[in-house]
């Protein structure tokens, strides 16, 4: 049975250390000026005056209804059999329709190939060797959980069954496979 890979980012465990960002760059040999993954921080002031931080994982959320794939005129942008959104450089003409259509700003133009590039869940490297994506492996607080949604016994399905999660911009109907465990303080701005 085909896999359906997904990820959970736990906002309570994340400390914004960027180890994931650095591990991704190193594993996937990302050129200096661009990023497949960054973690952003947002300072929150709660109604009682106390302060806190929200962390945001800025990367591809691997939608099920993929705006980037729908608009691509040559099918260079595609979803593989495991539900991972990828770019086939051989078909890409560089129109950047996918970069513009992505509501999550997950794509950038690779400075060497000039084709859009993005998070691949380390599909071409670690995942093909049966290992978890670099960001997941390196996270010091285990804020990231990766796995197969089609496997009821997978680690990710355990987290999704036990924790409250939401997804970004769900109103757009994109059905991201990047789930977020919200900060247990304050409100949720999806």
């Amino acid at each position, binding site marked *: 049975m085909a896999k359906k890979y997904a990820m959970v980012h736990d906002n309570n465990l994340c400390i914004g250390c960027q180890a994931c960002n650095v591990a991704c760059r190193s594993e996937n040999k990302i050129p200096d*000026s661009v990023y497949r993954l*960054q973690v952003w921080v947002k300072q929150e002031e709660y109604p009682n005056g106390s302060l806190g931080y929200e962390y945001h994982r800025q990367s591809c959320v691997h939608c099920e209804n993929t705006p980037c794939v729908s608009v691509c005129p040559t099918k260079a942008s595609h979803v593989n059999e495991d539900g991972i959104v990828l770019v086939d450089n051989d078909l890409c003409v560089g129109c950047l329709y996918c*970069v513009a259509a992505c509501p999550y700003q997950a794509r950038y133009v690779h400075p060497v190939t000039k084709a859009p590039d993005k998070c691949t869940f380390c599909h071409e490297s670690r995942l093909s060797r049966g290992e978890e994506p670099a960001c997941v492996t390196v996270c010091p607080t285990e804020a990231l959980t990766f796995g197969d949604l089609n496997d009821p016994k997978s680690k990710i399905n355990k987290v999704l069954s036990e924790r409250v999660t939401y997804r970004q911009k769900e109103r757009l109907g994109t059905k991201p496979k990047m789930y977020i465990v919200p900060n247990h303080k304050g409100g949720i701005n999806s």
Partner: protein
Amino acid sequence: MNQIWGSVEQYNTVVWHWPIAVYLFLAGLSAGAIISAIVVKWMKGNDVSPWDGIIKAGAILAPVTIGAGLCLLIFDLTRPLMFWKLLIHYNFGSVMTIGVLALFAYMPVSILFLLGVFKKELAVDGPFKFLAPIADLALNYGKALEAITLVLAVGVGAYTGFLLSAMNSYPLLNTPVLPALFLASGVSAGISANLVVGLLFFTHATKDANVSYLHGLDVKVIFAELFFIFILFVGMMYQGGATAHAGAAALSTGGLSTLLWVGVIGFGLLLPIGLNFALPHGVKHSHAFVIFNALIVLVGVLALRYYMLYAGQTFVG
């Protein structure tokens, strides 16, 4: 939201730049030029040569402007040498593929129209004698070809709007009225360009009655454009939330909102309407005024494309 480490340059939401705005302008103009030429041909019963200067202008402008626009579009790709892959790989769910296919059909019929109208200059007296049979074909099946051309031209004019409105990442572009607005402003640009080229280069062939007819049509199209812009922003307000916020920002923020109010609405739409009602009959039917009026309309349409492209990508709510 603040980054902690790393450049945020790649997260700029403005992905498509000015060459796309110029392409959208040229594609709309091309469609509008051939639509208005065919409309004059049909409505004014100009079925055989000699052709009116406006029909000649449209016959030249349609293939030339779409050709120039497509060259611009190809050189704007980040991988221009790969552009041919667009011609053999299709995704029927993508507006861009639909556009490629529409242009595939539109280019030849617009060239056929050119050959028919300029048969004497190109295929009889000119250097393209081998094209005479094709020019005859274009003339013999004129009505049918023009009907097909008209449908394809409406498709090309509207597709430039669908291309942008298909993206739900940009609330200002993701509106159902955008294709109608772009089609209307493309027709307005086509009429204006036909008037300028007809009056300047085919002065004796251009009938005053046809100039008045097209000029009058243009004023009606401009009213439609104003209404479409009104619908676009009111629709955004009614959607509330981030969409209403983006709409309000697009109407009131920075140089782009100035471009909208002064360039698009003031200069491009209200000034032509105002002059049309304020000036005495003798002045507004002079060739000089019609040309001046057409030029400000063209600047306004280009400003609209530029504004929509940049404001659409800038104000994301």
